[in-house]
């Protein structure tokens, strides 16, 4: 054994001292880690202030409002057709699905029902919105865990769906296609066949995601058992959609609530997963995307002929009353509590968005997790900031 030089000895002692200091620091006080509001992992401008003890999160507090646009106030000064444009922007990845519950609420108060063909087409676009939204999630979840490839596939195949939405509605992101009493326009020629081929592509995409991400060993290691939400807790926080189905609750408003849309006309399945962890949430969404393509296929096959617009007055005035309509949007239960006093615009609209409740569980679910899992859990809960802040 060779003698240490004086220099080496000093370096050794210095190193030991530094380590001791670090240990001391870790033991004595924790650290505050600010995530966001512009962190790329946060889907917008969500900010989370976490208090850490070493690698563990002691407390996490989301800070919101960076994108609050005051939609509930704005709806009070707009007419019903104008609001339709506005609420497209709530969950901007599935805009058409935002329109549907509001239109249904207005239709319920007006006692109008759209003709069957309109309901079927609404359902088709609702599911197309779901696919456009969730495909992005399926890829993006990979990105957040460090696997970049998946998201390129997601953007590629979402494009096909957006093209179909654009072809019929004129808007890729904000179709503004739903109308009180029906739809803006009928489907263009050749759209049905084209959409069917797109659905096949989306199914291929789902298979790809399953191979690339869903069965990836690293992915499973980072998601299995991470962020487990028992169903009772999920209910208390009002979690909905795939998040609660991933906790084992068999509840889907498409099947379990009484809407005039056409889900009851076709054969499909509600997917659940018993684990309640991040993997389960990913897995359920993956299955739901594939299921949505099957729903669209069946609806396209059975699309009834007929008008797409019921007889409505040219100036929409909704009779006085209150109505609550919620639908199973891509992110979960989205509902509008509509109060009308018989005017051209509503008196009050309470917008119940899924992400708001889904993210309100964050302080609970992040308690005690490790820092890398924060991103996993946030990604798997899947939120859109516009859907939280409204």
């Amino acid at each position, binding site marked *: 054994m060779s003698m240490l030089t004086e220099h080496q000895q000093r370096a050794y002692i210095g190193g030991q001292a530094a380590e001791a200091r670090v240990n001391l620091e870790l033991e004595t006080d924790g650290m505050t880690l600010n995530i966001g509001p512009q962190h790329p992992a946060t889907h917008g401008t969500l900010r989370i202030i976490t208090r850490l003890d070493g690698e563990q999160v002691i407390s996490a507090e989301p800070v*919101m*409002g960076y994108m*609050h646009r005051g939609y*509930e106030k704005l709806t*009070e*000064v707009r*007419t019903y057709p104008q609001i339709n444009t506005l609420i497209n922007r709530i969950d901007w990845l599935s805009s058409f699905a935002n329109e549907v519950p509001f239109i249904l609420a207005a239709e*319920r108060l007006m006692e109008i029902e759209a003709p069957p063909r309109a309901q079927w087409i609404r359902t088709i676009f609702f599911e197309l919105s779901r696919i456009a939204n969730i495909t992005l999630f399926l890829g993006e979840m990979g990105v957040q865990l460090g696997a970049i490839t998946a998201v390129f596939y997601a953007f590629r195949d979402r494009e096909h769906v957006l093209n179909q939405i654009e072809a019929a509605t004129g808007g890729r992101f904000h179709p503004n296609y739903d109308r009180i009493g029906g739809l803006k326009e009928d489907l263009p020629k050749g759209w049905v066949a084209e959409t069917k081929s797109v659905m096949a592509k989306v199914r291929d995409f789902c*298979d790809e995601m*399953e191979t690339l991400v869903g069965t990836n060993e690293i992915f499973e*290691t980072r998601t299995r*058992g*991470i962020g*487990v939400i*028992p*169903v*009772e*807790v999920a*209910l*208390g*926080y*009002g979690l909905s959609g795939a998040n*609660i189905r991933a*906790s*084992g609750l*068999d*509840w889907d408003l498409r*099947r379990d*609530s*009484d809407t005039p849309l056409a889900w*009851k006309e076709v054969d*499909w*399945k*509600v*997917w*659940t*997963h*018993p*684990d*309640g962890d991040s993997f389960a949430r990913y897995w359920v969404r993956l299955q739901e995307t594939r299921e949505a393509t099957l729903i669209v296929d069946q609806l396209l096959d059975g699309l009834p002929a007929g008008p797409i617009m019921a007889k409505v*007055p*040219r*100036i929409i*005035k909704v009779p*006085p009353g*209150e109505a*609550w309509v919620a639908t199973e949007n891509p992110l979960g239960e989205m509902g509008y*509590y509509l*109060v009308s*006093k018989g*005017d*051209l615009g509503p008196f009050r609209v*309470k917008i*119940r968005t899924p992400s708001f*409740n889904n993210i*309100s569980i964050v302080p*609970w679910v992040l*308690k*005690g997790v*490790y820092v890398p899992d924060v991103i996993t859990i946030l990604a798997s809960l899947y939120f859109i900031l516009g859907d939280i802040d409204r």
Partner: protein
Amino acid sequence: MSSAEPGAGDDPARRPSLPAEEVTDPTLRAEVDNPADANVPTGAEAAPGGGTSAADAPPLPAAGAPAELSSEQTPPQGQQRGAAGPDQGLADVAGGDAGSPESSGHTGTDPPVPAAPANPPPVQGGATVPEQPPATPRAVAAEGALARQAKAEQADQAAEAAAGAGLGEEPDPGLDQPRRDLVERLGTALDGGVLDVHIVPGVDVWVRVGIDHWHRAFEVCRHHLGLTYFDFLSAIDWLPSPFGRSEDTGTDEDAGADDRAAGPGGPGELEHGVTGGSTRFQLLARLVSPTSHLGLTLKADVDDVELRAPTVSDLYPGADWHERETWEMYGIDFVGHPNLVHLYLPGAFEGHPLRKDFPLLAREVKPWPGLVDVEAMPGEAEAASS
């Protein structure tokens, strides 16, 4: 519950230790290739109670789904909820989950109404009397507090079972018996707290309770009526907008919709919606049963002078943020709320934006350019307004 059991939280256990059980891919592969079989739940991925298709199954009855989140199927968790101190969280929410052995065991060991100590005094006035569903003997009231609570638990479960059985039947759309039952049981439990009820058969039900019974109403819904899903909580300001036409749509005259301003009361008179009301601000909340899928909209008038209400975030943790939003948007104080701070608005913001007398400045400065959209075409005004 299931999450607390896999205790092995050391580092190796964070990895999925189920190589042999990874049937995920074969199952899925089979389903993809063979969609006809897709409805048969198989392997580790088959959820209990899952896998019903819309066409061949009616909405499931209770099914005990929550309790069957079995720990065998849950991989070991690195996260260790138990270590993170979530027991409190679990206890808070586990109470109302009847109908399954595991969860009823849970409720047995927990304080039956964990929320009680946090309640503000006014609400607790009638709260010690447990709910008396028709099947329960009245004698319960005479017993000591502990025994009473235990009995309430039993009654609770019995009532749950009864409700579960009742809900399996086909509801009569004309009568809407399930919703009627719900309201009746709530009314019995609140003992005069229900002020008004509005049922649209087959669609929805509204119940207006006194503000003193607000917390108790949630407690009953949560623990006795099975409405464990918290949907939303908000408020309505019934004051007609004092900004009148400037903030309203400007072409109302053309459309003949100016009746509110021209009416006998004129602007300033409160007009309440369904279930009526007596004050300017009204709380609004919705709870849903995850098993019967019945929802209930609760309302309560908030006193004009003392703008406050008891918090329900101790019963439904999801109410926390909703109450924060309602507080900042309407200025309604929620007594007992753990963290009543701004949710959306910056800390120094003054005023309550969703109140009707809070001006929408953008509209004050410049009229809404989109107004042209609602102008009637020549000659169509009469036809449209009729």
